[in-house]
């Protein structure tokens, strides 16, 4: 059964959204998504909530107290947990409910209120019988970025190029947390080294924010008076965080998810057939790494697409025209933002960061220690068969 994104909504992402509660944050995104979809609450059949690990806000099962505010009273409510990829997985779960014929319209929402805690602390807790080696997500991923640079022989400035591109893109996005139109290669390279080889300006911010999407079946899509984003394919794969021989640079689960995704979407040459990609890049170097993992480039060659400007707006494959995770990182929502931004592109509703003529777009998220992968392909026309 076909499914489509009927509408998307997101908050203005900021370091601290102390003007709203968690419920208010979610509703800001939900209300915008419902308005964008042109549907009211009576047309929503189920709600799916995504949220990063509970320790990040210190609320055990936030879906319990949020049920009223996110419209779940009297409807089925599911919560999805897949660490940083959860926003993407949440959209995929909602899509599955529609494609399976269980529901006509499903609301998916994901959020994060990082200001209420400290994710760096939450990710660095030292259990007994271990050494105090945790140093947050940057400490975890920096060695793998170093391994990528060694393996691909990428020039040292590639990470900075990505940061400049994404931060400038973010300046075109009114919802972005960081909007830095004047950032330069020199200023990025002069920024403080945090987790060598990751610099301050190559790191995502810590954001409060939420995102919501309304997914509908074919009848709902055809009843919409507005343009929809047809979901051509979804894919999710998982692998252990650690195992002997794990390829942290080019994880097998990500590569297998991408292969399954392209096959289901009928895409044989992703670089040629995809017009724009929103990829989960929390540290700038992950753009070339994921370009390879997703099959847009051969292993070891992703950085060349970056260096030649092909991933910038106007390039062959604009990546993260919204500014991506490098500009806004409400962790639980970051994956859904990638999925929503991909939909906005093919709906022609991406405003100042619209990629001209975008008809097919990728939304991608990953989470855990490069462990969970979720992705979808959306298009402006209905798939021939599903």
């Amino acid at each position, binding site marked *: 059964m076909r499914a489509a994104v009927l509408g998307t909504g997101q908050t203005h992402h900021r370091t601290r959204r102390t003007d709203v509660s968690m419920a208010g944050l979610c509703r800001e995104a939900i209300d915008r998504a419902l308005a964008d979809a042109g549907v009211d609450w009576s047309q929503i059949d189920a709600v799916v909530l995504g949220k990063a690990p509970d320790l990040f806000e210190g609320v055990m099962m936030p879906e319990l107290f949020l049920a009223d505010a996110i419209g779940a009273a009297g409807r089925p409510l599911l919560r999805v947990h897949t660490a940083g990829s959860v926003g993407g997985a949440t959209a995929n779960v909602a899509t599955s409910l529609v494609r399976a014929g269980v529901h006509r319209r499903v609301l998916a929402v994901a959020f994060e209120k990082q200001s209420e805690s400290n994710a760096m602390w939450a990710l660095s807790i030292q259990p007994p019988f271990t050494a*105090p080696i945790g140093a947050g997500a940057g400490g975890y991923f920096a060695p793998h970025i170093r391994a990528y640079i060694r393996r691909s022989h990428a020039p040292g400035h590639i990470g900075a190029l990505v940061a400049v591109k994404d931060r400038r893109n973010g300046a075109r996005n009114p919802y972005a947390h960081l909007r830095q139109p004047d950032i330069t290669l020199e200023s990025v390279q002069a920024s403080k080294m945090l987790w060598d080889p990751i610099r301050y300006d190559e790191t995502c911010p810590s954001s409060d924010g939420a995102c919501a999407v309304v997914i509908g079946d074919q009848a709902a899509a055809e009843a919409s008076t507005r343009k929809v984003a047809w979901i051509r394919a979804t894919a999710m794969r998982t692998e252990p965080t650690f195992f002997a021989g794990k390829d942290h640079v080019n994880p097998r689960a990500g590569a297998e998810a991408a292969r399954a995704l392209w096959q289901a979407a009928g895409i044989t040459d992703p670089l040629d057939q995809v017009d724009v990609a929103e990829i989960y890049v929390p540290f700038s170097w992950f753009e070339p790494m994921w370009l390879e993992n997703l099959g847009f480039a051969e292993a070891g060659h992703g950085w060349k697409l970056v260096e030649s400007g092909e991933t910038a707006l106007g390039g062959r494959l604009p990546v993260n025209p919204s500014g991506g995770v490098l500009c806004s990182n409400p962790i639980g929502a970051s994956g859904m933002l990638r999925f929503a931004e991909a939909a906005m592109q093919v709906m022609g509703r991406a405003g100042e960061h619209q990629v001209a003529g975008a008809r097919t777009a990728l939304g991608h998220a990953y989470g855990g220690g490069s462990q969970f992968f979720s992705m979808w392909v959306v298009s402006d026309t209905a798939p021939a068969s599903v």
Partner: protein
Amino acid sequence: MLSAPLNIGFDYTRSLGPVLGRFMAGLRDRRVLGSRSADGRIHVPPLEYDPATHAPLTDLVEVASTGTVLSWTWTDHPLEGQPLDRPFGWALIRLDGADTAMLHAVDAGTRDRMQTGMRVHIRWSPERTGHIRDIECFEPGSAAPVPPSADTGEPVTIMTTPIRLSYTHTTSTDESRYLRALAEGRLLGQRCPVCHKVYVPPRVCPADGVPTEEEVPVRDHGTVTTFCVVNVPFPGQRLDPPYVVAQILLDGADIPIPHFVIGDAGQVRMGMRVAAVWRPPEDWTTTPENIVHFRPTGEPDAPYESFEEHL
């Protein structure tokens, strides 16, 4: 098996938003506010959104500080962080003027003073800050209400909610064996019978899902496969930055362990040969911290090809 306490805690903050912010400000002034939904019901504590129409609820009305117990239970052993440190009743209390009940503690002294339908009133905290704890607990009876203090009008935007979690962390049998070997100054690996990879520390093979049973001694020398120089400070950090956390492939193992490498951070490199620096044997316990850090050995670097599959 080994076990040890794991205590974690954080002073989380809650952004209250307009509705809960007014509710907390009211508590500071000894007033209880509820929100009126479209069907006319008064919800205490206030809901932010109407559960039926989903509209934001902005109509806040004051209710009484006296109420009725709708149902209850008794706790003889209060836990840390609960409203009272002596036995008390947990009750669903509907304040006069409200249509919903809130859960709170009743300081009844003994279980036989609790009953459904009993009248109770709020005991206010002597020092109120605009926090849910401004309601200390409830007391039996409809005592003369304490008049609210002047409405100071200052909104409350943030409420701090300290959370403390106490666990007993228990290791697996494989991990316990590894840790006991560490206490004797030995590094123990175990080989997977399917993929033949040697895991340090031993565990059920994540790739094959079977126990790794064959014990394989592993040397306390190894190769830095990749690393991070940590320059960033953060809460709970145990070392002063900068310091190097490296993935170290011990000789004989097929998966690296993370540990510190001491030396000039600028000199640490992929392929560098390192050796464990142990604490004095009398200090050894069941912890990887028996190894203080690794130090460069000065041997020639290992060729990249020898560790490229163990990054």
